[in-house]
């Protein structure tokens, strides 16, 4: 019996999984051929011979460029070399991945040959390959876009944070140098920079909290009022109130910029005309610029929260309210003790998302007043209403301190990621309470 099985498994092309894996390790495709998969094996051999091996010198040269960042000024362009270097690194990882898959494939096929020597027909193999490759096929275009236009720029950014790329060291005239953590150290320990950073960070957090809260507060009030069936024309009012959401934000902000203009804006004219108030320096004083940012954000943002909360209100179970009425609760009590907690519960994750969004709400800050007014003594052109993200923009395109901008964007990213993870675990435990069921 035993000898019979041995006889059966040791026929012509069966060489075992370990040997075929080893063969594929030595040369891509060799193991597949040993397993009797001629087409696949030949294809892999061709790939290694014609594509991979001839390009290895180029890969190594490009990777070396990433380390040296160039040697001859005006001839080697450090930025391009970084980009090529990152692409080469991607390619290397990709090749290694294919190689590993090739070995795994040989191992698995060797295993199935050991157990069942009869190979699948060519047609079945084709179909199998096509179906198991399908996920990768449809992922490829999207992932390629992400790889080149999101991941690559991120890596590029991280690399810049460790170089000396600024106005005085800009390629191709100069070769960039690696400086290690110098940017971070300088950024956080030089007193003028760290004070600026602290000021901007505090305002960023205050801004994110204020803008989110005001926006949800007004949204809640409007949604609750418009949810009252005794109000007439509710649909018309709702449509009017969501108008700001339907106008491209960029245009609205520029319109508001005109309305609030200190000398000629209609808002100041009306305030002076009806209340006799002195012109408010909307864009010249730090306080009023910040106020204007929150106000404009309120105008832009409350329709969104109103719509969300309207949806939630309409889904609230009626019986709780009926029970409350029976118990003699006033309508304010119902609002305070039923509506608010239930809405807050449902809206909490979105509130946090809005907070994260406003934390990086570049458009309002930058388009309304360029992050100004200027503040004496602040580094890197940071103005009185600048938040971190708009400061990064200014560091990049106005102060041309690319290295600091990159270092700061890493700091921002870490802040957001930390916040998101914290928030994720919090909402998880939140949900497990199952309050609404």
């Amino acid at each position, binding site marked *: 019996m035993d000898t019979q099985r041995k006889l059966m498994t040791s026929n012509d092309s069966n060489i075992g999984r370990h040997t075929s894996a080893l063969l594929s390790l030595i040369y891509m495709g060799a193991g597949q051929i040993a397993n009797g998969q001629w087409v696949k094996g030949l294809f892999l051999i061709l790939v290694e011979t014609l594509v991979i091996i001839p390009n290895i010198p180029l890969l190594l040269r490009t990777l070396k460029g990433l380390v040296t960042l160039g040697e001859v000024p005006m001839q080697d362009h450090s930025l391009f070399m970084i980009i090529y270097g990152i692409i080469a690194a991607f390619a290397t990882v990709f090749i290694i991945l294919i190689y590993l898959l090739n070995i795994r494939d040989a191992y698995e096929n060797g295993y199935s040959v050991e157990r069942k020597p009869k190979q699948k027909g060519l047609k079945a193999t084709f179909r199998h390959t096509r179906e198991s490759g399908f996920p990768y096929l449809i992922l490829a275009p999207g992932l390629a876009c992400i790889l080149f236009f*999101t991941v690559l720029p991120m890596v590029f950014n991280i690399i810049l944070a460790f170089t000396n790329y600024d106005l005085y060291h800009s390629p191709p005239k100069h070769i960039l140098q690696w400086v290690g953590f110098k940017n971070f150290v300088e950024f956080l320990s030089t007193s003028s920079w760290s004070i600026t950073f602290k000021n901007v960070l505090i305002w960023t957090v205050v801004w994110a909290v204020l803008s989110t809260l005001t926006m949800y507060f007004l949204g809640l009030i409007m949604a609750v009022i418009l949810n009252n069936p005794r109000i007439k024309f509710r649909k018309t*009012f709702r449509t009017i109130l969501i108008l700001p959401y339907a106008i491209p934000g960029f245009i609205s902000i520029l319109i508001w910029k005109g309305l609030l203009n200190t000398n000629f804006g209609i808002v100041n004219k009306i305030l002076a005309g009806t209340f006799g108030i002195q012109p408010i320096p909307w864009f010249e004083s730090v306080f009023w610029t910040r106020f204007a940012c929150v106000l404009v954000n309120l*105008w832009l943002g409350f329709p969104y929260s109103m719509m969300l909360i309207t949806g939630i209100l309409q889904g609230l179970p009626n019986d709780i309210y009926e029970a409350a009425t029976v118990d003699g609760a006033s309508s304010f009590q119902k609002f305070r003790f039923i509506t608010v907690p239930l809405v807050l519960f449902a809206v909490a994750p979105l509130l946090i998302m809005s907070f994260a969004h406003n934390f990086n709400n570049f458009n309002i800050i930058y388009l309304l007043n360029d992050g100004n007014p200027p503040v004496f003594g602040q580094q890197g052109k940071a103005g009185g209403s600048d938040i971190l993200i708009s400061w990064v923009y200014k560091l990049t395109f106005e102060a041309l301190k690319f290295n600091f901008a990159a270092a700061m964007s890493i700091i921002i990213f870490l802040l*957001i990621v930390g916040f998101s993870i914290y928030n994720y675990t919090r909402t998880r435990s939140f949900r497990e309470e199952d309050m609404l069921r």
Partner: protein
Amino acid sequence: MRVSNRTLGNIKLGLSYLVILLGVVFVLFPVVWTFSSSLNPGTSLFSSDMSIIPKEVTLKHYRDLFAETNFGLWYRNTLKVATATSMVTVLLVTFTAHAFSRLKFYGRKVGLVAMLALQLFPGIMNMVANYVLLSLVGLLDTHLGLIIIYASGAIPYNTWLMKGYMDGISRSLEEAAIIDGASSWTIMWKIIFPLVLPMVSVIGIFSFVAPFGDFLFARLVLTTPQNWTLAVGLRDFISGRYGQRYTQFAAGSLLAALPITILYLSLQSLLIGGLTRGSVKG
């Protein structure tokens, strides 16, 4: 007692109407003001004859927009970029979301988490790299370059949105199709795709609208005024010595906002549904 309850109710109702009225004024004021500015004969923000109800109504600014500026060209560019962005985004997102939602493959979990993390990274931080990258492949100052940047940036978030929606579709349909011998490709286009059309339209609209509102990347990539999109052009009207061409800006911004506003208002419920469903799941 009943009477006082009723008067109390009426007072509350009156207060409610007051709040609504204030809200409506707050919302409409900038819009109405812009509209009346666009009809005003003056040209700048500080013309003395600017008032909410124009003393004299003229359509001159609208005519000038097309006759004297590149506004028509910018409008065409924006429509072109927006349409292409929307189509590319929908196609790519359908692919990736389908793979993540319906298929099993090596690296699926890692991919999903990576998408979530990438979406947290603000696009502004990619600007320098994107600029260098586009200049390397010669796509600076082209619409194609801008479209690629917009579409790539839209993939991670929308993949999650679409995946969440696809997850709600029962597997029994596919299983039946597999038994009938349908290929993966057929299942994707003939079975899943028709079922996710509502989400496809939500993503399509959002990514169509994005180029209308984006100033930063358009400004970075497009340098020739003939290639500009509306956002860059409109900002140009009022940059420099602010207020000089305010009325022209007002007319232009109304024309630019009009299609988007109509689109949003008419598809209100669809868009809101898509938003809440996608975000609550995340």
